[in-house]
């Protein structure tokens, strides 16, 4: 596979390490009432879509960016690649 890195252009997937569902960005608030339940879901429950999937890839053999790659699990077509940091900020994560 070739991943179009938002900063570095098309890069071979062998330069990357795969982590999993991009929902791992949505780490729950540890002080919320339902923190235990929310962390359980966060750590263990994943959707397994046949189709578009947003997932985390790490450019370990490159610039060490974490990326959110939108990939079709049926065809491996990659429709969008974003810096995970931008995605995290857009989702309201900060410090």
């Amino acid at each position, binding site marked *: *596979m*070739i991943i179009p890195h938002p900063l570095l252009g098309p890069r071979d997937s062998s330069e990357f*390490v795969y*982590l999993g569902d991009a929902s*791992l*960005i949505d*780490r*729950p608030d*540890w*002080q919320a009432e339902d*923190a*235990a339940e929310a*962390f*359980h879901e*966060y*750590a*263990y429950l994943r959707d397994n879509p046949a189709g578009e999937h947003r997932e*985390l890839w*790490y450019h*370990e053999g490159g610039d*060490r*960016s*974490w990326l959110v790659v939108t990939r079709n699990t049926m*065809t*491996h*077509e*990659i429709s969008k690649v974003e*810096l*995970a*940091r931008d*995605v*995290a*900020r857009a989702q309201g*994560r*900060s*410090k």
Partner: protein
Amino acid sequence: MTQVNRLSGGLIDRNSTLNFRFDNRNYTAHPGDTLASALLANDVRLIGRSFKYHRPRGVLTAGSEEPNGIVELRAGNRKEPNTRATTAEVYEGLDAQSQNRWPSLKFDALAINDRFSNFLTAGFYYKTFMWPAVFWEKLYEPIIRKAAGLGSLSMEDDPDEYDKGFLHCDLLIIGAGPAGLMAALTAGRTGSDVILADEDFALGGRLNSESFSLGDDSASDWAAATVAELSALPNVRLMPRTTVIGAFDHGIYGAVERTGDHVATLPVGKPRQILWRTYTKRALLCAGATERPIAFENNDRPGIMLASAMRTYANRFATTAAQRVAIFTNNDDGHRTASDLRAKGVKIAAVIDVRDDAPINYEFEVLKGAQVVDTKGRLGLTFVEVALADGSRRILECGALGVSGGWNPNVHLTCHHRGRPVWNDDLAAFAPGDDLPPGMTVAGAANGTLSTHGALQSGAESAAIALDLKGALPDLPKAEDAPINQTPFWYLKGCARAWLDQQNDVTVKDVKLSHQEGFRSVEHLKRYTTLGMATDQGKTSNMAGLAIMAELAGKSIPETGTTIFRPPYTPVPIGTFAGRMKGQDFHPTRLTPSHYWAKERGAVFVEVGNWLRAQWFPLPGETHWRESVDREVRQTRASVGVCDCTTLGKIDVQGTDAAAFLNKVYCNGFAKLAIGKTRYGLMLREDGMAMDDGTAARLAEDHFVVTTTTANAVNVYRHMEFVRQCLFPDMDVQLISTTEAWAQYAVAGPNSRKLLQKIVDPEFDISNDAFPFMGCGSITVCGGLRARLFRISFSGELAFEIAVPSRYGDALMRRLMQDGEEFDVVPYGTEALGVMRIEKGHAAGNELNGTTSALNLGMGRMVSKKKDSIGSTLSEREGLNEPDALMMVGIKPVNADDKITAGAHLMDASGPVDAKHDQGYVTSAAFSPSLDCHIGLAFLKNGGARQGERMRLVSPLTDVNVEVEIVSAHFVDPEGERLRA
């Protein structure tokens, strides 16, 4: 023996003669021959024995689709089994052996299987060798493996080298037949980067096999002239002997180039094969078509082959399987073979055409509406029996029979992204559908355009479309443009032992049985009968199998469907996939800064991940590793020892939020760590399990140096970047790995300070008061060399770790050894390191094994409840905090001579020994020179409350049963007085 079946003409070099051996007999051939063509020229039709029934077999085809003519090529450690004789080029001294026969090819004892064919039908193994289960592994499988067979391995290391490479182009053209050559010409002349790959050693595809002309030239001359023009273009890369094995994602194609299979000896350092990873925007598949056989009784005798293969052998290789041949066809193409062979002086017994309206030819007899019903000839064809249109029978004498059942487009690569071929009524075959891999188009016969003119035209047009070329296409040479004229005919009604898949010995009867027993979908048919599951992937057999199943099920072929193909297109040696990644080169080797010094000292090394670390340093006279290790431990604890710990991961953490960041990744607190202090940190995974441990030294308000274990250095860094970028994107913190930047040595033992004081520059006070336990700082050594000093201890002794820039690592080690002579300094390796940390009760990789929590490790209280950190919330789960949770403890044998074995389990002193009564297990064990007995670290249920208890340590598999006592894990200096000395 002379080449009695040599014909005139051909693309072989008669000026040169090559000697080769087959089954220990000498033969001759010419350059340009394949092993198959050379054997036929020498009147050798019998080449192998079949897989299951051990039936005599010859070659069926003249290409890579060959199911039968598979041999062991070369001898000794270069022997390669299951190689197709039809693609193996003959070179001087080639040595080949037939396979799957004993004692000889002509007399094969297991041919008796053929007599028991009624029992050996589809599903025989499944039905027969069901029970008793234990018999399978010990009895049935070895016997079946020996009897059913393919070639044998040399059981030696392959001495050849293999390589991998990367290629990039605008257009990859797969196949150099008329369509591929014309496409390459069209694209190449515009200056585009083109790669033209073909599995054959001669480019031209079927143009080299035909007798017709292209324009004013013969087809093969036109091909040669086109190849010459292309090879002069700098933007075109011609790759003969290169098989494109698979279409992978995003325009990546795998290609295997056989650079050294056609020579007797490889030039030194040159690879035998190269696996090319080819990146292309567009790919044009011009893989041609494969002729398919017709199934009739005993259609597998040596001498029975595809009619198109016969034509290839005659026109290209100037050889024939016999001097008198017959043709069995359902289409006009079969007649062309008869004409070509007759033109070369081969006698045509007759053309048997199933069509009542078959064309008449005055050069040879055509039997219209006739069918071959059976054949004779034990080791090679002698007669065919023909049912004539009027129902009467006729026996024809012939040494070879060409069979032509129509052509199947080579759709294989179009299926590699799960594309489904679609049925084409005109061809009576499956052709590429619309769901091709992105960027791929198909031209020529592979797309169902079977005429030469059509192939040339579609090649040119497809290349122009793929590259979006404007302007006129190159002129096409005038070429044959015959329509497809065939009547689909798959098998003879009523036949049973008619072979479909000759490589896996699947017959028409097997397909019928599969249907009868309910295995009717194409996928079930394939797996139940093994049709198409041999190394040729059923290139010549699948279609007939599907057609028969369709007929039995009363459905059309498209309704029945087809299986699809997966990579590789043809078999690839494992060595090619490995490339240079074998033996020592399987992964990179990382050497520590003291490596060469350690080598001089005669150190024994151990692989730790990619690192090579000194395991121990034997002295003259030491005969057992324990002597060396025990000495290193005793000497370190008595005076001072030095160990290279550069391999520990080092991560530089800087920024105003550095402390806040460490508070997130470590479960214990770091915000209040004073500058100039170091703290042990435990990292959890989000699920609450321990991930790694290490230390963080605060060199400045906004600057920490974090260490990780050697094994987890890469993962921890990755994890920290995840936390930084994905979870806390606005934290002002930067990370960089500095593992390679600093050489770091542990200097441990009561005299460690005295030794270091000799090299640390005098302006730095490292006395106990100025530089207490867990202190850290930037210093200089040896007169101004910048260094870092950490007062941390893994051994339990007064100890330091000192780091200098890597390039001074070797010099520092030599200096420490020299200056340490007065203290009797000892270098110690990873074994002594391990012994000392077990004696001190420090957890390491064996304990941080992914299944243990902070609580299990005895560090439950370290998980701060006052802050959020990765894993803190889930570490509080009920299931991880049960009263009888495993806790790390120390164990000692009651009888001091007994050994503690890592992996053994703890059981109560009395009671049953079984999994249900399991109390825990030993993770680390060593002989302790300090205690003079074996000791171990273990996880024990409710271990914190069981000190002093006597238990049994058992390993029923290895007969371990030892009485042990549960003790504190801190065997040495439990109060930590030495650390703080």
